[in-house]
């Protein structure tokens, strides 16, 4: 570094210096980064075990320098349950998209939450199936065009987008539910704080922690990254409002 310069920002060492397969503008890389910042800042590389889903983030283990398992489509919550029950002192998280968590894996999601499994769900909700090429997800917005809803999602035949945070916060054994986004720097900071809080609650053994990240998909939304931020603000967030849906009392967490 040149004299007189001070480094104020860097990639965390726990995020491997690899070229990611994610599309330009996609939030996955941002969310990977904030998780790995926490791992580095807290010095918990030996304590964290992650579970990858099937979806765009199926290769997350290529980038995150921690022990990880790859789950079958929709089964990440069951896999995370198996890990956490065997290694209760570790911090376990599942990283899942909307198809994985809220369609094919709904039963595993609900029942892991209902048992109060002490791991953290990191739920990436971008309202579309990214990896398979832009099909309708359970969280696709009303009227939103996808390759399997080419005329726009029709609620009369496909229902309304499922609100997972609202749904799981009804379950008694769930400790903490917050919906965040990474559409602005401020929101990204809030997202990081939410994941930190979830890990803290997990370490206290208070119950299931569930962080929903309202995310984007410029490639399959057929727009620029910048336009995808507009879509989140104008269309997604009014239906999927950000905020805390459930949390333990402050004195329980600290």
């Amino acid at each position, binding site marked *: 570094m040149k004299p007189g310069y001070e480094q104020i920002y860097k990639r965390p060492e726990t995020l491997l210096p690899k070229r990611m397969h994610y599309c330009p503008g996609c939030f996955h890389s941002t969310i990977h980064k904030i998780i790995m910042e926490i791992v580095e800042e807290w010095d918990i*590389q*030996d*304590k*964290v*075990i992650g*579970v*990858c889903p099937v979806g765009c983030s*199926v*290769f997350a*283990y290529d980038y995150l*320098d*921690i*022990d*990880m*398992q*790859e*789950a*079958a489509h929709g*089964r990440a919550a*069951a*896999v*995370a*349950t*198996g*890990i956490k*029950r*065997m*290694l209760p002192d*570790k911090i376990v998280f599942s990283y899942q998209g909307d198809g994985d968590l809220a369609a094919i894996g709904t*039963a*595993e999601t*609900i*029942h892991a939450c209902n*048992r109060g499994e002490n791991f953290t769900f990191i739920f990436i909700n971008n309202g579309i199936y990214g990896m398979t090429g832009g099909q309708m997800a359970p969280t696709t917005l009303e009227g939103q065009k996808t390759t399997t809803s080419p005329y726009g999602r029709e609620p009369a035949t496909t229902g309304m987008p499922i609100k997972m945070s609202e749904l799981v916060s009804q379950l008694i054994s769930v400790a903490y539910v917050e919906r965040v986004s990474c559409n602005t720097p401020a929101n990204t900071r809030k997202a990081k704080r939410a994941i930190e809080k979830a890990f803290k609650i997990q370490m206290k053994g208070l119950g299931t922690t569930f962080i929903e990240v309202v995310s984007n998909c410029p490639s399959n939304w057929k727009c620029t990254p910048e336009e995808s931020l507009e879509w989140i603000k104008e269309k997604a967030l009014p239906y999927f409002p950000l905020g805390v849906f459930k949390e333990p009392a402050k004195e329980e967490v600290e």
Partner: protein
Amino acid sequence: MAETRFMKGNEALGEAAIRAGLQGYFGYPITPQSEVVEYLALQEPNHNYVLIQAESELAAVNMVYGAAAAGARVMTTTSSPGFSLMQEGISYIACSELPCVFANIVRGGPGLGTIQPSQSDYFQATKGGGHGDYHLIVLGPNSVQETVDHIYLAFELADKYRSPVMLLSDGAIGQMMEKVVLPDPIEYKPDKPWATTGKTPDRERNIITSLFIQAEIMEQRNLKLQEKFKKITENEVRYEEYKLDDVEYIIVSFGLCSRISKKVVDQARESGIKMGLFRPITLWPFPTKPIEELASINSVKCFISVEMNAGQMVEDVKLSVNGKKPVYFYGRTGGIVPTPDEIINHIKENLL
């Protein structure tokens, strides 16, 4: 301490797993297997294992995946429809090379079928079951005692080969009570440097996956698995021979059917028919060579595969005999257990 008890097969299975060092059990109730879950739930406070009654067999098998990949000694048990549901997970487990134990307390199918004992899941157990090229080591116990012994063996083989191992039992063996000698408990200490237990500075991160998107790499994984299956086939074939000296008619039977067939052999011998029994104990790897050698004996006239299904193992018997002698089949389906008399009458009327 080893002790003798009078126990139901399913309960003995659970007790054997506890004594073999079980650390995690994930299951879902289904007849005629539910006593395993119930027994383990009852005994849980006295031991250190974790038990979860999962929301489905899909969840159960994936809990097994996660826990096995975390390095623990884990098991699930089910019956036929439940075993079908587990196949996706077993395929992932086989490819990721995770040691764990399954037991299928088979009931008659297809479909929802019946709750009576059957051997109609032989194909599913021995030919793979899920998608892709793989095998499980498959043990076919024929008594409550052997159920217990096979659980110990299954855990041992699972660790030795980093492979899923299964017991192909049935509703009768699971439900009947017999005298059983329970072996000494094992103090299990896992030695699994590949497990996801948290990355420490002295090693690279451990990744458990069955995803190898480049065809060349996926082929390498397949070749590695095939190499392992070859080694298992060379080293782990187990079988039992009964009254095969001077034999002319050889019954081939496994599991419950082998006990009925023993009676058939005894009755045949009493009436002067030179009959014997060959019982595969490992259903995969199948005892191909010993059967091939028997087929080469001049005095042997034919083989009769007796099964509680419409004719499944008979295909492996035919492959082993390889045209040297005729191979016949007798079986009952849908949960019917054949009697010794009907088997011997069938043989007398059709084959002698």
